């Protein structure tokens, strides 16, 4: 690991200023992703500003919804009574990710900041536009079994590996961030992460030095019919090949509104407006779910080794919706 200066931040504004004033500085919260990447020489900050002791860990009612502190641990968030009661889909998504130890370390803000990544990003002997812009993409014509089938560009075919953000997207969360000037702004979770386009080195919409302070959840109608389905190479402690955050509001057997967000298929959490439109006003039946799944994948562009993901995603969507509607 390269040498870096360690600074313990005393307040959010001071932390934001410290990072903003050094282009090579980064925030440190749980450290589970950035330290790993620093050990591999993929991330090379010359300064880490430790924000883990800032008072940003509270989970509390806010308006008709709930505000989740950026520095609340994943474990504490998933198990908080307010979250389990009002946003059980979020609880399911968080505990589908990583391991018990990592969820005890990882913070909510840090979870959103984890890099979109693949093996070529980790392997410093291989080209990677995300790690070193302009060097090319090793995965595009390499081994791409786990890579994207939607929204990718010639520059990058990596997938966003997180689970928490998929559920947050389905729950219409808003990310609250604070800049070095002390001003706060909000970013809808769907605009927080980016598709690769020509700048795969940028995973999200934050400016350098902006600090996530909270994630706000509006009141949710999805407390009865929800399911987070994660399909992976082994039963636990692995990234998703395909994940589905499914939520339904059902009235007398008819779907009033639906949320379908896919993980493991694109550079960011992939919400399918097509699937949601296909479900709206339809009976909550397996046939409706299968049609929605077809709609979600109609524009899929698989790579050489991941065509299986198209069919897998369709079946995963249908199954997640069946579970959400309590028919399976």
């Amino acid at each position, binding site marked *: *690991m390269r*040498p*870096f*200066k*360690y600074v*313990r931040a005393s307040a959010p504004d001071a932390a934001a200023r410290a990072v903003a004033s050094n282009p090579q500085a980064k925030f*440190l919260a749980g*450290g*589970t992703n950035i*330290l*790993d990447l620093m*050990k*591999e020489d993929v991330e090379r900050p010359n300064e*880490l500003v*430790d924000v*883990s002791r800032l008072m940003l860990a509270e989970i509390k009612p806010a308006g008709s919804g709930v505000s989740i502190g950026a520095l609340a641990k994943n*474990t504490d968030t*998933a*198990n908080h009574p307010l979250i*389990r*009661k009002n946003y*059980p889909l979020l*609880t*399911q998504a968080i*505990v*589908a990710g*990583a*391991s*018990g*130890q*990592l969820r*005890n*370390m990882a913070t909510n803000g840090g979870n959103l900041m984890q890099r979109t990544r693949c093996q070529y990003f980790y392997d410093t002997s291989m080209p990677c536009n995300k790690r070193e812009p302009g060097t090319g993409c090793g995965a595009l014509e390499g081994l791409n079994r786990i890579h994207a089938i939607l929204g990718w560009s010639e520059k990058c075919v990596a997938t966003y590996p997180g689970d928490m953000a998929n559920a947050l997207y389905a729950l219409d969360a808003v990310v609250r961030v604070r800049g070095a000037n002390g001003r706060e702004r909000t970013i809808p979770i769907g605009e927080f992460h980016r598709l690769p386009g020509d700048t795969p080195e940028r995973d999200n919409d934050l400016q350098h030095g902006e600090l996530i302070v909270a994630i706000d959840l509006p009141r949710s109608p999805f407390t009865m019919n929800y399911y987070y389905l*994660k399909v992976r190479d082994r*039963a*636990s*402690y692995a990234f998703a090949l395909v994940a589905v955050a499914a939520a339904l509001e059902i009235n007398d057997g008819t779907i009033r509104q639906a949320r379908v967000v896919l993980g493991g298929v694109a550079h960011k959490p992939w919400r399918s407006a097509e699937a949601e439109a296909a479900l709206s006003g339809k009976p909550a039946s397996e046939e409706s779910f299968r049609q929605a799944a077809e709609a979600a994948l109609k524009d899929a562009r698989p790579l050489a080794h991941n065509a299986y993901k198209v069919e897998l995603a369709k079946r995963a969507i249908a199954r997640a919706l069946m579970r959400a509607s309590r028919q399976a």
Partner: protein
Amino acid sequence: MNDDFDEISEPELTADEEALLEEMPALTDVGSARRTFLGQSITGSLGVFALMLLEKERALAAFEIPPDALFAPAPAVENPVKVVLKVNGATKSLEVDSRMVLLDALRERLGFTGTKKGCDQGQCGACTVLVNGRRVLSCLTLAATVEGKEVTTIEGLSGGGKLHPVQAAFIKYDAFQCGYCTPGQICSSVGLLAEARRGDVSHVTEDVTVTTTRLTDDEIRERMSGNICRCGAYPKIVAAIQEVHSDKQTAQLWRSVGDEEPTRERKEGKGDEAI
């Protein structure tokens, strides 16, 4: 001798074993903790194994390694950070390179070599320790961030001459082969049991809105998925955790050569058992 492992508090040693223990070099605090453990191991039917270790220690001690060899000053420190933390109840004051992770601080600077380095990148769980009572990966924890916190390693779980119930259960169920992942497995189990008592849910919990502290074997398997065991001792690890969790004692299933046959719950030949 087979079924009462949990009840042993004071090691009962033969004269030969006492003599061996007496001859062991008193290297460090760690050494004395290990002596206690080895003493207990002897009484726990691991005598042959433990005696071999003692012989090795004796042979190594003959080289007369200077007592401070394990604690040689660290190489050049860049970006030094002062850290005061508690490890197994004792306050420790260190100046570390900002890059140093807790795992290396424990092993290389403080002599707590019970915590193991496996993958060193958060994928295997061998380095699991408890920080403020919660299980974390020491390989992905900067030592600088542990300022003011309490760390418990495998060395700190036993106390008063008694193994932690999870340690005793791991021995009873033979829940390891090579043993390299075992300190991490045990620390992780201790953290898991506390999480279950708190009512935490997992990926296999059917209804996450309901608080449940009952751990099925599936729940244990899922919650231990962050600890990889190359030897594949998983079934016995699950059984060991299940016994501590359910507090239902079962008979020890293995014995050393020469030991008496374990007492069975039901005697054979009574004629009331279906074959």
